[in-house]
């Protein structure tokens, strides 16, 4: 099977998965107890007003019609209106999505940049102080709860030393880049970096620890394989054996985990967002759930689902590049 064919197949599968997510969330909403109209109007509203709103929102239609209309809207990017704020759900999501993506990607970069070299050092200097240090770090990293780490970082680095701001996101990454390009000053970018540093470290620590462990154990596994001895026997320089051969093969399982983790970061950074008052999708989802704002909940879940699917397709295509046997099977 060619690479293109493989990719097309994965994308079609992804569309199917997204459709499944839409259907399940729609079914959940339909099965949820209570009259949705109650969530929109005041409890004391007249029956006429209720009926009028029911018609306007389309809740008087049979369920399958509502479902088809929802799907129809989805195709053109219309996710409906929020019950609570009466605003367009797609706009409400679009406002928050960049912050979430910034944080998820920053946390992943922190993890990859720290974890992979650490894992490599740990595996190639097994049973040396560097290895013990890395192993200890990953053990501590995996067992430290996010909210505690976040608060401690704020306490020490922000409040006491004053190195980083306490919370918030005064400027978005795109604005910061635009300002750098138009004015030539990096001030906004520095502000953005200083604000995202602590949340990214907080969110990335567990991830860093996990990838360090995976890299170490994967590399040790790989180093024990016969092809490594054969590559040594042909006289290839050690650097090429370690990086071109061994690390590359070690990356195959790591890419999978990276993708899955990035997917969870999109929806699951709720605690970190709360601690740092970071205006992301996670905090909006939580408030939507409190308000039983179904269109918003549904919209956010679908966006997270689409994100997951996209990342998985990306991961699969990287995976196919790294491991030529995938496209063959």
């Amino acid at each position, binding site marked *: 099977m060619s690479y293109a064919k493989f990719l097309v197949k994965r994308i079609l599968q992804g569309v199917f998965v997204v459709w499944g997510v839409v259907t399940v969330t729609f079914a959940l909403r339909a099965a949820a107890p209570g009259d949705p109209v109650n969530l929109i109007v005041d409890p004391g509203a007249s029956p006429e007003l209720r009926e009028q709103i029911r018609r306007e929102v389309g809740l008087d239609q049979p369920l399958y019609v509502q479902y088809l209309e929802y799907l129809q809207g989805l195709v053109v990017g219309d996710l409906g209106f929020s019950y609570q704020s009466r605003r367009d759900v797609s706009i409400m999501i679009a406002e928050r999505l960049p912050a979430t993506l910034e944080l998820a990607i920053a946390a992943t970069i922190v993890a990859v940049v720290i974890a992979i070299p650490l894992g490599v050092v740990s595996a190639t200097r097994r049973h040396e102080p560097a290895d013990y240090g890395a192993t200890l770090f990953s053990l501590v990293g995996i067992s430290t709860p996010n909210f505690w780490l976040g608060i401690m970082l704020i306490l020490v680095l922000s409040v006491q030393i004053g190195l980083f701001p306490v919370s918030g996101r005064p400027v978005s990454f795109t604005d910061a880049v635009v300002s750098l390009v138009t004015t030539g000053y990096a001030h906004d970018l520095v502000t953005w970096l200083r604000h995202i540093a602590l949340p990214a470290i907080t969110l990335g620590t567990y991830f860093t620890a996990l990838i360090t462990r995976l890299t170490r154990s994967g590399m040790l596994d790989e180093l024990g394989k*016969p*092809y490594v001895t*054969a*590559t040594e026997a*042909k*006289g290839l320089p050690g650097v090429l054996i370690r990086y071109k051969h061994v690390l590359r093969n070690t990356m195959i399982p790591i890419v999978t985990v990276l993708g899955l983790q990035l997917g969870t970061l999109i929806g699951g950074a709720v605690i970190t967002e709360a601690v740092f008052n970071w205006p992301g999708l996670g905090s909006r989802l939580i408030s939507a759930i409190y308000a039983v704002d179904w269109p918003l909940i549904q919209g956010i879940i679908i966006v997270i689902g689409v994100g997951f699917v996209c990342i998985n397709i990306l991961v699969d295509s990287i995976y196919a590049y790294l491991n*030529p046997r995938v496209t063959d099977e």
Partner: protein
Amino acid sequence: MSESTEALLRVEGLSTRFFTEQGQVNAVSDLDLRIDRGDVYGIVGESGSGKSVTARSIMDLIESPGEITSGEIWYRNGELAAAVEDDHGHAVDGSFVDLLEIPERVRRSLRGTSFSMIFQDPESSFNPSLTVGEQLAEAVEVQRRASANPRSTRARTRSEEYSLGSFVLSTMLPSKRYVSEESRERAISLLELVGIPDPVERADEYPHEYSGGMLQRAMIAQALAGEPDLLIADEPTTALDVTIQAQILDLLDELKRETGMTILLITHNLGVIARMCDRVGVMYAGEIVERGTLADVFDDHVHPYTHGLLGSIPDVERAGGRLEPIPGNVPSLLDREMGDRCRFADRCPKAMEDCLSHPPEVDAEGSDHHAVRCVLAERSYDESRALPDDYFGEPDRPAEAVDEPQSDDEPLPAERTQPTLEDAGGDGS
């Protein structure tokens, strides 16, 4: 046969030990070996007899917890001798260099260019995620870079290792890649040399797209890339089908005749030895117990172990008859369990009281090269001095007959699960 009797490699008193949790394992003990230029030297023995460890000791591929604890490996290379003489005079003797006395870096630089190796299982000996062509081209490139400088050996012994910085640069700039275009082309012609059809297309394929026999051909091509002085073939046919085995042996034979290279062939298969080798060493428990020309070992053998090995080969003419496997198993190589007796005594049908002390190697009848580590070389078997059957504790299992061995793959008794060594990579055996 060899046109000269010039030694290429002289191994003297080599001991390689593994320091495991169970104790010290003497994988190779005080081993001497002389390989002449242009010869095919065969080492034969059961799994765990130390043949692979010997090969890996020569290649400098012994990994922790293993270690070469003593011995000398003299390699004839005038150029190398001249290059290291100034700094490491004690490691040079004429045009010979003691590989165990020169720095690790210099020794590593000999891999691929002076010595190369073919492994037992081709499928696990290639990296599954790089194309075969790329992997061959790497081997060519090693050689190309080594000989790029006219004073190549000297340059090699002093030059810097390929650094991490150069690797990072190479991932970004295609022009800085380690493997050059010329090497890729040479890799294709090597594939052609070993008889792989459509070499241009096959070079871009991955190892899993090759059959076992084709991949073993590719591995031979890879081993030839550096035009080595010595090719070590460690069980080159064990993992292959019988029909493919013959093709691979033919190929090795043909290449040997064309290039005149020297081969150290390691196998447990006496048929392979008989077909390929000029000289043979029979290994048992980390020692060469009998050595000599093919005729010495096959026709005039003295050691009861050699006799036993030959008796374990299925023979068409005796079909229906019974094989005579050697009773018992390979002995433990754990230092504390090895007594100071002949290591074969507990399995030997002709063990005598004299065998309770470790026999020295003595010359035997036959050619000048015939030597054996057995008291029977100097006196004949004397039943009155024989050791009682149960001398070594409970008698080992009797020589039960093996009815129909499936092939000549495993003519020898199975390995005992004990802390002996993993032999020859393990997977395929």
